[in-house]
């Protein structure tokens, strides 16, 4: 307990004595965390956009004329059981015609000729949550006697799936890379602080301090400095993103942007925790050289 108190006190003393270096570390960490946070916000929004696009994917299952209600229900049940399906609606040929008329608006008169012999078919419309699941929907209804045709823009969906997969993989890889870059930057800053106090470390070793006692003040210091960096970055990101969502909301309402409070309240505390963790890891890595026998 005495040693723990000593380590906490020493970390404070260390930061005060190397005030300029500490400030430089906080600043570097803040820049690194800011870049990481901006990237993660961008990634979250891109992911949201991909979800949004995927939700636009619709599969229309046209039923044969004279399909019975039980056949219809069996199609709906089969589709409903598929994972990644958001909504299933039955649209009768009459409803389809009414919808068509609506969409023609003032030009509805053009439809007069066909209204008597409605050429449209009963259909089951499937809204997807996950574009990947389209093929599962197709498989589920394939061979069903009541199904006449399944339409879903095969090529477009295939392209969309490939693109979203690549994008998500890219986001993951870049997030990992940026995480490492942040660790590297913070570790380098802490390393400077450790280097400035290498004499102290060698004397501590000389007088019989255990590695734990030598390490702990630096670990606390690394955690404190990196956390402060993360807090500064979090404040900057919170202000910037809130302004951005307001601006986009006003001038480009059609762009789906994640609401500021929801995403920031989840992400920023994590950023600070991540900061503390990276600070601790950075300090331990930086000390390795000086604690080697």
């Amino acid at each position: 307990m005495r040693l723990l108190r000593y380590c906490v006190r020493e970390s404070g003393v260390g930061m005060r004595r190397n005030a300029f270096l500490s400030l430089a570390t906080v600043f570097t960490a803040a820049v690194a965390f800011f870049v990481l946070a901006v990237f993660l916000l961008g990634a979250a929004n891109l992911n949201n956009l991909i979800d949004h696009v995927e939700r636009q994917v619709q599969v229309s299952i046209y039923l044969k004329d004279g399909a019975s209600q039980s056949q219809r229900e069996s199609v709906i049940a089969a589709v409903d059981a598929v994972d990644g399906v958001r909504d299933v609606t039955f649209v009768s040929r009459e409803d389809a015609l009414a919808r068509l008329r609506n969409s023609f608006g003032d030009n509805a008169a053009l439809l007069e000729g066909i209204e008597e012999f409605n050429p449209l078919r009963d259909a089951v419309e499937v809204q997807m949550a996950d574009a990947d699941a389209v093929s599962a929907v197709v498989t589920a209804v394939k061979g069903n006697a009541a199904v006449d045709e399944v339409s879903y823009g095969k090529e477009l969906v295939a392209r969309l799936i490939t693109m979203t997969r690549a994008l998500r993989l890219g986001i993951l890889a870049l997030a990992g890379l940026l995480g490492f870059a942040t660790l590297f930057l913070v570790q380098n800053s802490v390393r400077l602080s450790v280097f400035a106090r290498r004499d102290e470390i060698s004397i501590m070793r000389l007088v019989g301090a255990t590695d734990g006692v030598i390490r702990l003040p630096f670990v606390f210091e690394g955690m404190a400095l990196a956390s402060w960096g993360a807090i500064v970055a979090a404040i900057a990101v919170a202000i910037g993103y809130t302004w951005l969502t307001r601006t986009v909301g006003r001038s480009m309402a059609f762009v789906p942007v994640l609401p500021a409070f929801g995403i920031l309240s989840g992400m920023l505390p994590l950023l600070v925790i991540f900061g503390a963790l990276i600070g601790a890891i950075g300090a331990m890595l930086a000390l390795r050289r000086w604690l080697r026998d």
Partner: protein
Amino acid sequence: MIEFRDVSKRYQGSIYALSDIDLCIQKGEFVFVVGPSGAGKSTLLRLVYRADVPTTGQVIVDGRNVNALHPSQVPFLRRNIGVVFQDFKLLPSRTVYENVAFAMEVTGARPNDIRRRVAQVLDLVGLRQRVRAFPQELSGGEQQRTCLARAMVSSPKILLADEPTGNLDPETGTQLMQALFDISLLGTTVVVATHAQTIVDAFRTRVVRLEKGCLIRDDSHGGYWGPRGVHPEAGGDA
């Protein structure tokens, strides 16, 4: 207290820093290790507090084989060994008091014990009035005495001094050596590496001579082994 059994030390790619050393130093002994630069004096001391491990042979300190110690045990070995260096190795941002107290704080000593013991050793080395001074405000002799106080504050069984008078004028050097000698009289084993022959001659005590890593002489001035104080011919001021 300290025993070298057929110890050799070779640094990577270089010649032997120490070669086939057999040496036994008893509790409370005061021993000079002398020899020219590069003779292996510092290496010999470094092996005692395990800053280095021998290439072959064994170093036994207080009954423990130092090279067989697990790294986690090394700090506990060092708590029983005080080390004084030529370049003092004081922390410039800490006062005399803090530099000395530091050695006890990092081992988790009680604050009351630290205060009491630091005051004692600063009295012993005559620095009681300089507790608030920073190293850069001290003379060379005062800095070395601060270093000595730091080495002594944990009441070590062994005190090692590597060229402790190297940065001091002859008079201050002799005073410091006398302080080290007095410490040995209290039961601490003191080993001093030096090439200051005049200071060595001033003390009637055991001298171990190294040359090119080999122990070439081990005598005890007139047959005595152990502390015997200032040589009568060296004058009473030393």
